[in-house]
């Protein structure tokens, strides 16, 4: 499939400023976003379980230019949502899709490696359809793909690009999303949840990688996180302010999040910030039967309304 995809990229290349995909990363376990301008650069294109990043995050930067983008199913939803919200123009993007079998979660690989081996010690790796083998120094360690695949992939409904101009490969069957992750979290009592976040957020360094990795954060340089007018947050290092930022992000993404999971992945200190958005996504699905990023013609549910809302069960007084 790699070669077919490379062919598709080369085909698209003459019409676009660049094609965004994945290329070699700084270590064997990671790829990096890759911006291909010349045909010879396409050789280094990487796809597969290491194609973790969501390239859609870069698209709005290229507004006014035509670009190509290689997308996993989840990435394509971000693109669709960007189009729906006018952040990206459909005619300015050439979408190359392929059937995705899931990507790895480096933290899960770390867990498999055990306490004494860090992912940074891995010298090389090989991947077969359901196994991943890493070499650390002179020893090899093989793990089941299922054990290291990102959580979002386990409930992936759209393994194929939702919209594409070029599609390479045979579409895959999607799974259903039963929000098992939320259900698991909700085993905790209200007080336990409070304590959980108090602990987790105390680690936050306010780097805003979660925000900047989000393909649907539109404000970018004008985020309220650091503004004084409006002054929602102070800059003191407190869990309250840090948690509040997560709630801002979740609120702003309510009904818009496409579930790419980049916020959680980007977090350098491993805070599961995706849970906030997942909660909003589930609510949007239940209340408004809305799934962001599946149809560029729809309006996000919080930017519209219905005069009757049968699914909203208001409190009786």
């Amino acid at each position, binding site marked *: 499939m790699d070669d077919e995809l490379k062919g598709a990229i080369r085909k698209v290349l003459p019409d676009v400023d660049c094609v965004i995909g994945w290329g070699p*990363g*700084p*270590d*064997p376990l*990671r*790829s*990096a*976003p*890759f*911006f291909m301008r010349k045909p010879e650069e396409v050789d280094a294109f990487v796809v597969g379980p290491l194609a973790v*990043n969501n390239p859609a*995050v*870069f698209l709005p930067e290229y507004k006014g230019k035509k670009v190509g983008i290689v997308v996993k199913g989840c990435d394509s939803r971000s693109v669709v949502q960007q189009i729906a919200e006018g952040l990206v123009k459909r005619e300015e993007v050439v979408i190359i899709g392929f059937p995705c079998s899931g990507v790895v979660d480096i*933290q899960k690989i*770390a867990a498999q490696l055990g*306490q*004494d081996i*860090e992912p*940074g*010690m*891995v*010298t090389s790796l090989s991947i077969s359809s359901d196994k991943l083998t890493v070499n650390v120094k002179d020893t090899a360690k093989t793990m089941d793909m299922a054990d290291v695949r990102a959580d979002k992939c386990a409930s992936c409904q759209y393994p194929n690009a939702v919209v594409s101009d070029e599609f390479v490969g045979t579409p895959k069957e999607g799974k259903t999303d039963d929000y098992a992750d939320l259900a698991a979290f909700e085993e905790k009592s209200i007080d336990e949840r409070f304590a959980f976040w108090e*602990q*987790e957020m105390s*680690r936050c*360094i*306010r*780097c*805003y*990688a979660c*925000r*900047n*990795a989000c393909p649907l954060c539109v404000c*970018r*340089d004008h985020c309220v996180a*650091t*503004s*004084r007018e409006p002054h929602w947050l*102070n*800059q*003191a*290092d407190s869990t309250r302010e840090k948690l509040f930022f997560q709630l801002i992000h979740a609120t702003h993404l309510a009904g818009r999040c496409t579930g790419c999971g*980049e916020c959680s*992945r*980007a977090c*350098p*200190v*491993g*805070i*599961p910030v995706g849970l906030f958005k997942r909660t909003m996504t589930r609510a949007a699905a239940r209340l408004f039967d809305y799934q962001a990023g599946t149809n560029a013609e729809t309006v996000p549910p919080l930017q519209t309304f219905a005069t009757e809302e049968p699914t909203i069960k208001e409190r009786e007084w």
Partner: protein
Amino acid sequence: MPGNKFLATADVAAWLGELSKTMRVFAPRNEGQAVVYREFDAAKGLELRRKPTESAKHALFPRSEELLSFSYLRPAFGAPEKEGETPSDVSQVQVKMPVEPMPTVVFGMLGCDAGSVTTFDPIYDGSKFKDVYYLKKRQATVFIVRACAEVLSTCFCNWVGGDPANTKNADVLATELSDGWLLQPVTERGEKALTSPLLKDAPAASEGQATAIHDNARKSLGDAPNLEGIDAALFSLFADNDFWQRQSAGCLACGTCTYLCPTCHCFSITDETSARNGVRLRSWDTCMASLYTLEASGHNPRSLKAARLRNRVGHKFAYFLRNNDGQISCCGCGRCIKSCPSSVDIRQIVKDALVQAASIAPPPPPQPVAPAAASPKPAAPVKGKGRTKEKANG
């Protein structure tokens, strides 16, 4: 060596517990999927093998701290006022300094983390201005550096004059041996810190064992490339927008690199108030954020992330050198690479810059010119391989 101590693995927690009775003890521990420096809590464990996700700089340079506090005083109500005069109840403000820092020990920080203080000192302990908040903490903090037995693929301290067993700025060097820790005092302050009865005199052979571990780590770092002329190269590429745009294409402009970086030392100052009271806070800031340079008028000298990445790399590998006798302000810990959500690799940028600069006709390097009035220091030429030197004058 006399003064070397041995701490049995089983006694580590007890010793830290003992220290924390009189001092603030920072030590790395696992939290979630990260390794972070926290105040020591025996119940929450220690992590002395994996590399800490964050640097230990917050021991000296907290994420936020109070610079001063103030209160607007209640006006004197009912004070008689003369006709036609400005009312006498004008605002009165009272300004206070914050509290003194606690004596602190950072246990188990990495060599690169300690090396980074070399970047902080000339800035915060400058010839003109002294940052008292930093200095007081600096004076009150003992660094116990843990030598690296393993290195990661993102480690490159040897490129920038660092070492897996770096002792620069360290007070004690700690090396994990098979059954415990060899603690080698580096400074007098370090020696004084090693007085607990839990610490035994180290067996003679331990020093050799430690050296072997150090050498092994050094070896696994591989060879460092020659970074000579990197500052000139970066200056010559200052206006090469295409170069910087390519380098920054994948950058998300978040603050992960700078906040995890042991040498990044920029901050913002903001006032927060409640009713009549307020504080002036200093908090970490990042040059990767657009807001960092955004002016009130809306003008932004570094509005593009390309310019901001240029500034980060430039600061570490060119600007700081010019003002600080060739000192590179990167300690090679590799955190910015390891934790970058977009896998931006500063090593690659530096290497590319050297190649790119060599490929274009070398422009006249910016000459030290007659400054308008007074440039505090003439730009110093880069010396050697950017290896760290003792601070020139202090």
